[in-house]
C-alpha cells in the first residue's frame, strides 16, 4: 500500500528551479530515504508533501489526503521533525511536550516519550540549555506525540557526534518497527545506507535513482577490492590467475586485489594453498557514495 504518492512535482522559487520533475511512491512500514547534496530539492519535496509548500505543478496524495486541501486532518495523522525549527528559549522540556499534546485530538502520554527518548532527567531544563542531541531527541518526541502513521525526519543527525548519531539510528529503526512509515531526508550517504529500506537519490531537482541500497550498489557493477599485507617470499602477482581477479596492485607492503564475484573467497583460498595466511585480509565494497558519483559524475560532498 502506498502511503505517499508524488507525481510530476515541480516547484520554482523565482527563476530557481528547486524541484524539476519528481515522482515516487512510499510504501507502508518502510524507511524511505531521500538523499542528495544540499540544495538538491530534498527539503522542498518533503515540505510539499507535508503541505507546508504549495507545488507549482504535480499531484501529491498522503494517506489518501491532499496536503493542501486536507491540511488539518493530515497534520493530525503525521509527525514532523523539521530542519531549522526551534522552541522558545526558556520553554522547559516537559512544558513543550505538554503544550504540543494539546494540539492533537489523539496523543500518547508524553511522560512515556520523555522516558523513551532519554529526556526524563532533562524534563525541567530550558530548551536553550539542551545539547544538540537532546534538542533533536525532543523534536523526535514531539513528532511522535500524536502516535502518527507517518513520520518525517529531515536532516535528523546534522550536528550530532558519532555516538549520538548511532543512538539516533537505532531509534529511527525502533520507530519503523512500531509499524510506522518513516520518510528520512539526509545528505549523509552512510546514514541512508544504514537505515533505508529504499532510497531515492535526488540531484538538481530530479530523482536520479530509486531502489534498495543493496540493489543500487549492485547495479553499479563496481569491482570489489581485497586488501592485505604482503608476506615475505610470496609474490602476490600470482593472484592474477585466480577466478574473478582483474588487477593486483602493490603499494609498499599493501596488496590490493581488484575483481568481481566471490572475490574474497577465491583470494583467501588461493592464499591458503600457498600457506599464506594474512591476519588483515579485508574486503572493500562499493558504497552509496560511489553510486552517487557514478550517477552524477560528482561527489556528494562537493
Amino acid at each position: 500500500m502506498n502511503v505517499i504518492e508524488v507525481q510530476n512535482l515541480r516547484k520554482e522559487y523565482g527563476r530557481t528551479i528547486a524541484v524539476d520533475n519528481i515522482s515516487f511512491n512510499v510504501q507502508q512500514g518502510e524507511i524511505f530515504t531521500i538523499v542528495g547534496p544540499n540544495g538538491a530539492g530534498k527539503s522542498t519535496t518533503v515540505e510539499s508533501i507535508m503541505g507546508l509548500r504549495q507545488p507549482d505543478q504535480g499531484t501529491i496524495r498522503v494517506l489518501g489526503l491532499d496536503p493542501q486541501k486536507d491540511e488539518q486532518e493530515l497534520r493530525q495523522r503525521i509527525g514532523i521533525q523539521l530542519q531549522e525549527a526551534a522552541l522558545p528559549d526558556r520553554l522547559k522540556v516537559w512544558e513543550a511536550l505538554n503544550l504540543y499534546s494539546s494540539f492533537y485530538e489523539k496523543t500518547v502520554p508524553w511522560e512515556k516519550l520523555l522516558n523513551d527518548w532519554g529526556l526524563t532527567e532533562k524534563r525541567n531544563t530550558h530548551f536553550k540549555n539542551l545539547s544538540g542531541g537532546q534538542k533533536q531527541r525532543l523534536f523526535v518526541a514531539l513528532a511522535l506525540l500524536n502516535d502518527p502513521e507517518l513520520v518525517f525526519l529531515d536532516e535528523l543527525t546534522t550536528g550530532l557526534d558519532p555516538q549520538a548519531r548511532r543512538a539516533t539510528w537505532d531509534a529511527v529503526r525502533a520507530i519503523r518497527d512500531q509499524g510506522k512509515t518513516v520518510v528520512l531526508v539526509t545528505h549523509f550517504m552512510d546514514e541512508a545506507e544504514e537505515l533505508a529500506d529504499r532510497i531515492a537519490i535526488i540531484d538538481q531537482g530530479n530523482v536520479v535513482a530509486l531502489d534498495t541500497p543493496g540493489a543500487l550498489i549492485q547495479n553499479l557493477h563496481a569491482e570489489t577490492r581485497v586488501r592485505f599485507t604482503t608476506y615475505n617470499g610470496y609474490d602476490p602477482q600470482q593472484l592474477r590467475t585466480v577466478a574473478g581477479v582483474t588487477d593486483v596492485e602493490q603499494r609498499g607492503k599493501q596488496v590490493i586485489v581488484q575483481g568481481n564475484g566471490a572475490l574474497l573467497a577465491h583470494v583467501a583460498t588461493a592464499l591458503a594453498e600457498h600457506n599464506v595466511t594474512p591476519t588483515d585480509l579485508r574486503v572493500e565494497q562499493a558504497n552509496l557514495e560511489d553510486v552517487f558519483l557514478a550517477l552524477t559524475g560528482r561527489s556528494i560532498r562537493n
Partner: protein
Amino acid sequence: MNALRKMTWVEFKLTIREPIATFFTLVFPVLILFLFGSIYGNEPSEFLGGRGNVDNSVPGYIAMVIATTGMMSLPIGLATYRELGVLRRYRATPLRPLTLLGARIIVHTLISVIGSAVLLMAGVLVYDMALPVNIPAIIVAFLLGNVGFLAVGFLLASVLPSANTATAVGMALLYPMLFLSGAGLPREILPDNLVAIGNFLPLTHVVDLLKDVWYSNTWSVTPIAVIVGMTLVAGAVSVRMFRWE
C-alpha cells in the same frame, strides 16, 4: 480550547522568565510618575484645567503602557519566534494561527492590566489621585485602546522581517508618539505646531479617550472612530501579510 489554555499559560510563564522584556512596560511608567510627581506634586493647577499633575498624567501613562506593549513587546516577541524557527515548528502541527494569536492577546492584555493597576495604586496611595468617575467605563476604554495597539503590533510583526528591525521600527514609532500624544508629557506644554502633529497620531486618541472617560465618562466620536478604524485596518492587513517563516 485546551490548546488556547495551555498556550496562554506557557506564554505567560515565558513572559515572567524574561523579566527584562517587561521592565519597560511595567516599571518605566511608574518611574516617570514618581519623577514628575516629586517635581510637581498633585496640587490643582490652573494650567492643567484645575487638575493636579498626577491626576492629569496617569491616564496618559496608562496609554503609554498600552502602546509599549503593542508596539514593542508583541512585535519583538513574534518576530523573535519567527527568526528562531518557533513559528515554523508550530506550523507543522494542527495548531491554528488564531490560537497562538489569542494566547498572545490574553497575555499582553494581562501585562498591560498589571502595569495600569500598578500606576493606579501608586497614584492613589502616594499622591491621593482622583479615581475614574466610572470604573466599568474606564475598563471598556482601556480594552478598546489595548485592542487597537495590539492590532498595530500584529501589523508590525507581520511586515517586519526580524527581531532587530521590529525593535528599531517599534522604537522609532513609539518614542516620538510618547512625547507628542500626551502619553509621556502633558500636551498643554507643547507648542501649537507639535499639538497639530499630535492630532494625527493614534496614541493621542487613546490618551484623549482615556482622559475623557476617566474625568467625565464622555465618549467622543473622533477617538473611538480612530481606534476602531486602526484596529480594523491593522488587523485586516496583518491577517493577509502574516508569515510563519
